[in-house]
């Protein structure tokens, strides 16, 4: 079973040379820490920056340079700033190769729900609906079950949707799964996690191949 850093570490392996990547808030943000440094990658933040670098040193924060999580950031050589309409042009036009975001629920059809719980305060979808409707390549980073122990990988989402049929891959604390026509295809198990444990934690259809290797994180 993985912790949040473990999930981020595994997802970092999906980031390929030459990718522009948009990272959501939470676990996805951690992915940047684990991307191999021998490949060329740029991080986009939808509030209007490409080429994000690490957080600034103390005392060097600039209120005018933040990411979509409103955190102070720095930029790397080759960075650029742009306005919101251009930023979502990049996203909608599929120039961003990979979007990594969290979810409350994912269905076996690739539907995703991550913005609204009826009856609770709704903060809004931010850029998530644009990102999931646009990206060719979406990876969901989340825990396999919610706090009540219920599966977040469902036949059908119970919460209001963020997007329809858009999720391609899911990395949880238990497994790596691909959304296929037949259901969630189990690609990898987390270290020390059994297929049975994954099956028990998955409400949606789980397709289990003959061999399910354990994840390699390094």
């Amino acid at each position, binding site marked *: 079973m993985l912790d949040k850093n473990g999930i981020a570490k595994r997802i970092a392996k999906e980031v390929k040379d030459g990718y522009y990547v948009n990272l959501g808030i939470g676990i996805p943000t951690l992915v940047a820490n684990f991307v191999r440094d021998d490949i060329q990658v740029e991080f986009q*933040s*939808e*509030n*209007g*920056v490409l080429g994000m670098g*690490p*957080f*600034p*040193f*103390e*005392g*060097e*924060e*600039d*209120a*005018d*340079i*933040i*990411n*979509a*999580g*409103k*955190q*102070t*950031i720095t930029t790397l050589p080759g960075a650029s*700033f*742009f*306005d*919101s*309409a251009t*930023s*979502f042009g990049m*996203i*909608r036009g599929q120039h961003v190769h990979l979007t990594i975001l969290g979810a409350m629920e994912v269905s076996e059809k690739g*539907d995703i729900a991550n913005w609204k719980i009826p009856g609770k*305060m*709704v*903060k*809004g*979808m*931010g*850029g*998530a*609906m*644009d990102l999931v*409707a*646009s990206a060719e390549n979406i990876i969901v980073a989340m825990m396999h079950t919610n706090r009540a122990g219920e599966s977040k990988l469902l036949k059908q989402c119970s919460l*209001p*949707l*963020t*997007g*329809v*049929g858009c999720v391609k891959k899911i990395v949880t604390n238990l497994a790596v799964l691909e959304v296929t026509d037949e259901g969630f295809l189990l690609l990898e198990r987390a270290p020390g996690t059994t297929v049975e444990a994954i099956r028990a934690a998955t409400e949606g259809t789980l397709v289990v191949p003959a061999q399910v290797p354990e994840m390699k994180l390094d």
Partner: protein
Amino acid sequence: MIRKTVSGVQEALSGVQDGMTFMLGGFGLCGIPENAIAELVRLGVKDITCISNNAGVDDFGLGLLLQKHQIKKMISSYVGENDEFERQMLSGALEVELTPQGTLAEKCRAAQAGFPAFYTPAGYGTEVAEGKETREFNGKMYVLEQAYEADFSFVKAWKGDEAGNLIFKGTARNFNPAMCGAARITVAEVEELVPAGSLDPNHVHVPGIFVQRIFQGKAYEKRIEQRTVRKKEDA
């Protein structure tokens, strides 16, 4: 050259009335028109509709207008970080229209550029698309979204000149450019107002034609919402 300079925030906001719709630039507290917001509070205009990606925090940004119950309706993509907002929304005092962020930006840009509506994939199959026309292009589904209509746009830039040309800094650009020229009157406040001819015409982000009034703002706080830093020894 057509001069857009006004004497200050009071002249810049002349004509503002109860019940109007305003666009306000900014992402979180970054790049918000601090002077215009303060003047809206001072004027006490009521029942306003605000098109703004976020709703500020309790004691800054649009939160200042919420404190005074001046806002009737918020059109935003994300409205967290604000308890007063939550109270008014849950009590029904405040109407909220949540819009995907890219759709919000493009609804401004459409208004600026004379497009009545546009097709976007964002929100298809979700409650955002309810009651809206949807349509397939090349095997993919899209939602028809309408351009915004607003009375005033309040934007904030880094530098501006007498002709209304604007230059932004960093990610404080965000929604400000698309909101320029997207309302009947665009009011720009800048940190530094320079004479015409001081800005390189190649570096202008927003040509002055999209701006009706410009003034140099005062006493910018430029608050940081999430101050995140690393220690020098970690590098």
